[in-house]
């Protein structure tokens, strides 16, 4: 949608962000070893920069490219992933989504919106012991599919549902 260059506006060099992110983590009293726990469960193929925020995956415009940048794995559709989205969203700026799954060993959950300028909306990392039950609110530019990805036991599972949007949430 619109000009490609606009999205990079206002972005500071990664180094500064990493430094500040580091400060935030230090403020939490997280030692390096503690932070490493989350990364250990992550497939080596995934392109995750040092700051942890998957910049490349968030820059992808197609579903397949985002999936590749995020996990480097193919997703297998699964009925064990329960995605709860509204059938019709009157306001695309606030679309509640929630996901639960009965799959064991879930280490990551991601939400993609196929009709958005950038498909990846949110990606969550779960430590062992964290329940595979996540809710949040997303923006949707137009009627399209919400795709949920669950990384469980090193395999990627997905499910998708269409949401009809009557008023887009990305302006313009």
């Amino acid at each position: 949608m619109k000009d490609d260059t606009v999205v990079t506006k206002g972005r500071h060099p990664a180094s500064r962000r990493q430094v500040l992110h580091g400060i935030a983590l230090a403020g939490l009293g997280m030692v390096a070893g503690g932070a490493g726990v989350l990364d250990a469960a992550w497939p080596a193929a995934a392109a995750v920069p040092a700051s942890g925020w998957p910049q490349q995956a968030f820059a992808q415009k197609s579903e397949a490219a985002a999936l590749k940048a995020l996990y480097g794995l193919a997703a297998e559709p699964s009925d064990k992933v329960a995605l709860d989205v509204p059938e019709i969203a009157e306001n695309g700026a606030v679309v509640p989504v929630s996901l639960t799954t009965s799959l064991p060993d879930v280490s990551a959950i991601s939400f993609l919106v196929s009709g958005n300028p950038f498909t990846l909306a949110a990606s969550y990392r779960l430590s062992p012991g964290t329940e595979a039950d996540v809710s949040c609110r997303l923006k949707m530019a137009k009627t399209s599919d919400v795709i949920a990805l669950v990384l469980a036991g090193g395999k990627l599972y997905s499910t998708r549902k269409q949401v009809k949007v009557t008023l887009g949430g990305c302006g313009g």
Partner: protein
Amino acid sequence: MPSTIRVRAIAGSDTTEVQVLIQHPMDSGFVKDKNGTLIPSHYIETVTFAWNGKPVFTAYWGPAVSKDPYLKFAFKGGKKGDPLQIAWTDNLGQGDATTARLL
């Protein structure tokens, strides 16, 4: 300045349910203001949650997360009074952190 983070973390019998609301514009970089100038993107990239100093949950967000983001998740364990540390940083290097007590 009051915290930008509002937390409600309730310790149940075996799991703790965490709900959080963060005040943030979450500008996508696609919206124009009334003069027709693009509002530059400004959104939270990372939110971390640690219970008793141990990371339990990390959120990576893009500009497609709604303004004043809401998030809910749950983890095993946790008892009343335990500290839950929450911190966020955005694409402009701003951030906030807070420590909540489980209810």
